[in-house]
């Protein structure tokens, strides 16, 4: 940072640290070194565990096989990071040096064009675009899996997909979407936009920022490898002992979660520190844009939540590799222990996903109705209340596990109390649009869609939080429909609204409006049809995660599948719009929406350090409206 602070960007020489190793490393060298590490680990461990009897190689036990595969996967991840140069800085520190100023500037990637997106680049704007492309890829893959699932469920007895493949699809759709949704707003917008919004030159720890993305990147091939190792039969919840019984594909799941948890920890610390320490002069806490508050609460909530999942996966890996018996009751462990660890992560995690999406829409609504955000304090308290309560509700996923029936009452109380801060979020949004004339651009449409979708998700959540109703609904399609209304209908709608809103700042061009509208209606109508059918199937008594169902459920499932295709087509249209507009869209003015947050005061392309001179803030960014 030191060099970057000193001089305005125009006065700086173009960095050219010719002989530095850093200039020669990129994604390609990362892949090469990663593959070498993985192969060395694989064959090294293989030779360690392989035994021969009378010159014949004995087959490996499943335990040994798991050790070898996990070893190779982690070696890939570490090797990739070595190959892309992530450890050059720490190694220099180890020997009492640091990167030279020239090298630091080189890492920031200024003037390197498209190449910098494939390098260990510390510029938060580059990392934001990397996240955006990564998220869209994951959503595309996860969505394709959802289409395959719905196609298989279009009519009863349609064996379009084999049972082993189907169960893997269910699990991989789940985990791909969960990972994508955790980073869908805080990844692209938290990295690209947020530092500009708070008036900072960069993130607090630019190298950790690059690390968080590239660590996450290494998880993608690991997760994909599950397909070639027999898939995962457990769903994304990976309950023990099914996960202990599962085949080699399970190792890919375990390694993915552990790698992803490292990435979220690094990103969470970085974003939190940036917001706490690097807000520009005058930006007191009550002047911070609400998206920044939401994103920070979200990542700060992820910091304590994910380690329990990581720990549970380490233990599952140990159970599978060394028969340690943490979770397998047949060797003295407890599946309930796993379920607790999982949901202690799992319930905060849904709010980690939800909050940034809502916060993005709260940023959008005042701009498009030209009114101040209604009750900023209620918004902050709403987010904080949800985050605080969310760590106390995990066992509502276990009402019917038989684990502790006497705790059902207390967990029902904490769960239903979440209605109160959630209600505040609704109040803020409807208070903001009350008596406004909403400018019906794409971002604003998302606000309306969110209000409807999240209302349905919220009300159905109240049934599920009630133990006697959950007696019937638990484990049914009703639950699947409920959480898709909250995670997809609310959080993804928020993120798509955010994309339409910040697209001009991230690409310099406007998102194609016609395609955006077509996509919006296809997705929203299809989505509601899809999950209306699923509510119906669940109320009728169809369990979730089934490959087949009785003829009795055929109408509700057909409705769902028809809706799903509409969502699928709509998402393809959106993808086309994003790709097409990136190079061919209408050039955007600096502030196309007339918004008052700081990111709209910088030109495109955003200069390396965002601002030549940091702005001074004298009020919050919601000073719209006439009449005092």
């Amino acid at each position, binding site marked *: 940072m030191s060099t970057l602070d000193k001089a305005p960007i125009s006065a700086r020489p173009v960095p050219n640290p010719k002989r530095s190793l850093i200039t020669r490393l990129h994604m390609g060298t990362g892949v090469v070194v990663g593959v070498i590490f993985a192969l060395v680990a694989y064959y090294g461990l293989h030779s360690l565990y392989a035994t021969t009897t009378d010159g014949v190689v004995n087959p490996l036990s499943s335990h040994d096989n798991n050790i070898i595969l996990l070893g190779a996967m982690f070696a890939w991840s570490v090797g990739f990071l070595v190959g892309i140069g992530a450890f050059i800085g720490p190694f220099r520190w180890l020997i009492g040096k640091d990167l030279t100023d020239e090298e630091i500037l080189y890492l920031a990637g200024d003037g390197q064009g498209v190449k910098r997106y494939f390098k260990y680049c510390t510029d938060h704007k580059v990392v934001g675009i990397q996240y955006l492309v990564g998220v869209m890829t994951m959503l595309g893959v996860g969505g394709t899996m959802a289409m395959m699932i719905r196609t298989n469920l279009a009519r009863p007895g349609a064996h379009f997909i084999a*049972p082993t493949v189907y*169960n893997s699809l269910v699990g991989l759709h789940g985990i791909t979407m969960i990972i994508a949704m955790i980073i869908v707003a805080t990844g692209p917008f938290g990295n690209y936009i947020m530092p500009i919004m708070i008036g900072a030159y960069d993130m607090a720890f630019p190298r950790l920022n690059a690390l968080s993305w590239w660590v996450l990147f290494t998880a993608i091939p690991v997760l994909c490898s599950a397909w070639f190792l027999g898939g995962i*039969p457990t*769903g994304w919840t990976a*309950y023990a*002992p*099914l996960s202990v019984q599962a085949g080699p594909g399970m190792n890919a799941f375990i390694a993915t979660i552990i790698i992803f948890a490292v990435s979220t920890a690094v990103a969470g610390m970085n974003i939190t520190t940036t917001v706490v320490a690097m807000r520009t002069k005058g930006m007191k806490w009550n002047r911070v844009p609400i998206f920044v508050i939401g994103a920070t609460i979200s990542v700060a909530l992820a910091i304590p939540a994910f380690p329990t999942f990581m720990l549970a996966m380490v233990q599952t890996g140990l159970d599978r590799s060394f028969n340690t018996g943490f979770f*397998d009751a047949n060797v003295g462990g407890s599946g309930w222990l796993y379920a607790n660890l999982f949901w202690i992560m799992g319930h905060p995690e849904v709010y980690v996903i939800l909050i940034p999406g809502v916060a993005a829409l709260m940023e959008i609504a005042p*701009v*498009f*109705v*030209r*009114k*101040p955000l209604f*009750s*900023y304090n*209620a918004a902050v308290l709403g987010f904080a209340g949800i985050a605080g309560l969310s760590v106390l509700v995990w066992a509502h996923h276990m009402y*019917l*596990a*038989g684990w502790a029936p006497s705790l059902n009452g207390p967990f*029902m109380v904490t769960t*239903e109390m979440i*209605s*109160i801060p959630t*209600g505040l979020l609704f109040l803020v949004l*409807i*208070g903001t649009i*009350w*008596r*406004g*004339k*909403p*400018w019906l651009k794409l971002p604003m449409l998302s606000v*309306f869609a969110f209000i409807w979708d999240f209302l349905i998700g919220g009300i159905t959540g109240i*049934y599920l939080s009630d*133990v*006697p109703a959950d*007696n*019937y*609904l*638990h*484990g049914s399609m009703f639950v699947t429909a409920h959480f898709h209304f909250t995670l997809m209908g609310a959080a993804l709608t928020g993120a798509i609204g955010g994309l339409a809103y910040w697209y001009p700042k991230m690409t310099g061009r406007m998102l194609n409006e016609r395609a955006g509208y077509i996509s919006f209606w296809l997705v929203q109508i299809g989505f509601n049809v899809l999950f209306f059918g699923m509510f119906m199937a669940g*109320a009728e008594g169809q*369990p*979730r995660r089934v*490959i087949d169902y009785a003829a009795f459920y055929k109408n509700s499932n057909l409705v769902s599948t028809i809706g799903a295709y509409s969502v699928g087509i709509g998402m393809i249209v959106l993808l086309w719009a994003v790709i097409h507009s990136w190079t061919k869209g209408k050039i955007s003015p600096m502030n196309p929406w*007339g918004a*008052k947050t700081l990111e709209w005061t910088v030109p495109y392309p955003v*200069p390396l350090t965002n601002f030549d*001179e940091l*702005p001074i803030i*004298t*009020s*919050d960014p919601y*000073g*719209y*409206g*006439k*009449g*005092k």
Partner: protein
Amino acid sequence: MANHDEHAIEELPPTPGERATHFIKRNDVARTALLFVAYTGIFIILGKYFYPKWMPTIMSKEMKSAESIMIWFTYISAPIAGIVLSVATNSFMNFHRGDTPPPDGPAIRTNGPVVALWTIGSLIFTLVAIVWGLLEVNSQAVAAATDAKSAITVEVTGSQWLWTFNYPAQGIETHDLNLPVGVPVVFDVKSVDVNHSFWPVQLGIKVDANAQVTTVIHTTPTMVGPIEVKCAELCGLYHAYMETNGAVMSKTDFNAWVIAQGGHTA
């Protein structure tokens, strides 16, 4: 690049307070009120007709309570949904199109009474839901305890991918779940492999089957008729097909069935 004066955002008066008269404007209120009535009505109708139509035959008190909670929670949610959706729709109907932003709206930063009312309202709503749920949970627990003396026991074993029912007092083991009407029943549920979840659909109860531990649920079938038993926890390859049938039958029919299975009546 602009200097910092251009970045600086205009100062607003520090008082965020708004008089109620400013917050409320007559034609907005009238339209919103109409929409409120319409939306609330729609939700009440949805609750009244959809769930009873969709959900299976009620064959126990637990099933009755699950269904009535879904219906009644829909009713008490209806006015909240009505407020949110009527305000949103009213605003939507005032929309503005075009390439320039609309004129500024009223600068309403907050409204103390509205925020307070909303918060107290949602608190009351939440308390109603909580108290209702707790009373229901308690009455089910009390019923289970009092019924336990006269109950028959069924040991349920889940295995990949089969349900097995053992009636220890009758000395029979089957794969169909038959129960006498009006007699309390205790299910002792366990698994021999991975987790399953025992779900006799029309009885409205459910509990996980775990290896090495026994979980217990109770019910009293209140009506004669067929029941389905499903697995509600992903348990591997043929999870979807881990289902069986059964019936709630009259005591005479049940005893006849037990004898036919080679058991003895108590």
